[in-house]
């Protein structure tokens, strides 16, 4: 029951963090000049966005500057003329009720994904989130599968060739710029796969559609019906899972194959941190007294490392998984942009330049944050479960 108290506390701590992050985004937004908001909301039409205009423009005598009624009307419409804390409260209310505004259909993000009318940001995020989650899961699996054994090895064989090799490998991954690695890998993959062979329409706008992106055959006539107009799939929205649910093993395999490459790039880029941590925690554990006890008991060395040290160092490692997660998910915009993988990262990448779509930018950021926080909580609960000192109070 101590465990439950712990879990509930952990979940309660979620809210201040989320609110804090929202406050940060609010601070940034309210620091922007008012014009930005006007343009973002009403599009770049002919409406004069300046508070003072020549009097003639507003049909008043004299040649001085007069207040621009349209401007103030729009400002009032957006509630930007209210005191800051009222705006904050409003912002909080909207954010917490998942009312994150709509996609600005003038922005190039909208055009990139052919979002014609202004759709709620949350809806779009709902479409794109599953891809990011699948990618994250895949990369996390790869990272752990590599880092845990390798880290233990390099701890046991400290400063010996295997240790050095493991470190060089992982650090090189850290040191290679993600965009560079991703692009080259993709380039190589395209070459190896015999270049670009469009499957159903050759005049695709984005070259890399043919390799990296999902769904595998965009705008194809023979696209299965459970893939919607946009990239959302039914019923769950997770492409692989849906493909399996519909028994379409080819597409399932296809989607995994297409996520494999970006996942590998991400894993390669972020395995270093956790490997280093596994190694160090293992080194510490191996110096502890109970390891000596185990040896004195006559436990064979392999068992000492795997059972006695391994479990302990794993427990320690679990504690940093959350941070690792926060680390590598930050790289998603770039990777998803390169591989043109329809995830939240791509959404973000498309919505920042040349004209920003603030709805999407802040929406995606918030979403990433929530992912990280939730991951952290899950990790903590896992740790609490693994370690009797926490589990039993």
């Amino acid at each position: 029951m101590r465990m439950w108290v712990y879990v509930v506390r952990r979940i309660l701590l979620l809210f201040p963090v989320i609110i804090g992050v929202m406050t940060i985004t609010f601070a940034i937004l309210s620091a922007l000049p008012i014009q930005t908001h006007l343009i973002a909301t009403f599009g770049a039409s002919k409406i004069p966005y300046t508070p003072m205009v020549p009097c003639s423009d507003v049909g008043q005598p004299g040649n001085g500057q007069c207040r621009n009624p349209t401007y103030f009307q729009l400002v009032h419409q957006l509630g930007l003329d209210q005191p800051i804390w009222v705006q904050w409260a409003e912002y909080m209310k909207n954010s917490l009720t998942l009312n994150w505004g709509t996609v600005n259909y003038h922005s190039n993000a909208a055009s990139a994904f052919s979002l014609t009318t202004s759709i709620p940001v949350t809806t779009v995020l709902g479409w794109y989130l599953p891809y990011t989650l699948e990618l994250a899961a895949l990369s996390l699996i790869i990272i752990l599968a590599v880092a845990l054994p390798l880290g233990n090895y390099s701890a046991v064989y400290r400063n010996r060739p295997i240790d050095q090799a493991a470190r060089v490998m992982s650090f090189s991954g850290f040191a290679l710029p993600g965009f560079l690695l991703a692009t080259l890998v993709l380039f190589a993959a395209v070459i190896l796969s015999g270049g670009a062979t469009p499957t159903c329409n050759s005049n695709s706008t984005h070259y890399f559609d043919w390799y990296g992106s999902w769904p595998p055959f965009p705008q194809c006539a023979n696209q299965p019906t459970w893939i919607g107009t946009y990239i959302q799939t039914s019923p769950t929205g997770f492409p692989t899972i849906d493909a399996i649910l519909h028994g379409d093993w080819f597409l399932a395999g296809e989607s995994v194959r297409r996520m494999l490459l970006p996942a590998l790039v991400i894993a390669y880029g972020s395995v270093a941190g956790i490997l280093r941590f596994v190694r160090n925690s293992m080194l510490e554990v191996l110096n502890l007294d109970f390891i000596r006890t185990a040896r004195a008991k006559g436990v064979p060395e392999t068992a000492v490392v795997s059972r006695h040290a391994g479990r302990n160092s794993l427990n320690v490692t679990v504690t940093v998984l959350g941070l690792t997660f926060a680390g590598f998910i930050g790289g998603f915009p770039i990777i998803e942009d390169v591989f043109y993988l329809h995830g939240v990262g791509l959404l973000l990448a498309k919505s920042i330049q040349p004209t920003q779509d603030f709805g999407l930018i802040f929406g995606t950021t918030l979403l990433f944050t929530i992912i990280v926080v939730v991951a952290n909580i899950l990790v903590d609960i896992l740790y609490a479960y693994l370690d009797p000192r926490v589990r039993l109070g």
Partner: protein
Amino acid sequence: MTPVIVPPKGGRPRPGIAQLKRTLYFLSRNTLAIIGLAIVLFFVVVALFSLFSPLSNQSLQQYCSVTYGTNGTVGCQPVCTYDASSGPAPAANCYPTYSGNVGFVGPTVDLTHLTGGPLPLGSMQVSSGTNQYYYSIYDGLLKGSAWSLGIAATIVLSGASIGLVLGAIAGYRGGYTDEVIMRFTDIFLSIPGILLVLVIVASFAGYVQGLEGRMLLLVGAFIITWWPFYTRIVRGQVLVTREQKYVEASRASGAGTGRILTKHIIPNSLYPVFVQLSLDVGAIPLLLGGLIFLGFQIYPSPYFPEWGAMSANSVANLQSLIESCQFGACVFPWWQILFPGLTVFLFAISVNFLSDGLRDALDPRLRR
């Protein structure tokens, strides 16, 4: 009676000298760390050199650059052109017009910038080739070393100092101070990776003009993102140091919080900061590159000499090249990617080795 005080031979050892020697010894047992140290030092030297080289105060010189026609032809678009048959060049960086197929080498201008063959610095030709903006990559890297290292150092050092102060206070004071600071830190920590930088820059890039403004924005954004990591690390270490008896001893003889923090706690909590610091210095050019790659115009000019920017631009250029031309017929401008990429990579990885070695050398638990 009062004894005579005889300082030992060879002057008084400074506090920390012994520590440093020890650290270096343990560092020296780690080959990778030594390699890393060497490369980092090399880069620092280059940066200093570039500050005093003529490049530092003049703007980058444009060279002739290759343009790739859709039909596989390669053109050399000069900055100022003249007919080679009619006398010498009117100006230093004027080249004769030239056009031909790939592999054909013209009489006066060779295409070393295509093959990246080594040429003496300052010769008319461009060793290491140029980027798509006609600028020598070599010059860019040289000039960029100062920028990159400068930016990275500024960000990391200021982030670390903020973190040090906040972390030390939080750890030493404990209680509500600790709670407040750490909750605040958690909020920032939970925004993943560079997204906060990205958001800040994305929001304000449009309104900040000029080199100084942009730099301020960039560095500011990074600092806002960076300090929480250090705060957390320092606090963790301070919580350990705080319990040491010598802290209590100096409190017992009436020392105030300020003295205890400065004399005892901070000096004894520094080592993890060093490790993290050395790591992050390497990470920053990568992150800058990422921002550029996503298409931020964070620098006043698209060919701004900063390592991350250079590599990002070249990669972006590669993408556009591949998209624009029929695959296979293009000349693959590998030098544009290799040299900046290699620089960033080397810097980051050497710094990694160094910091890993430092950790092993400084951490008493790992020291054997």
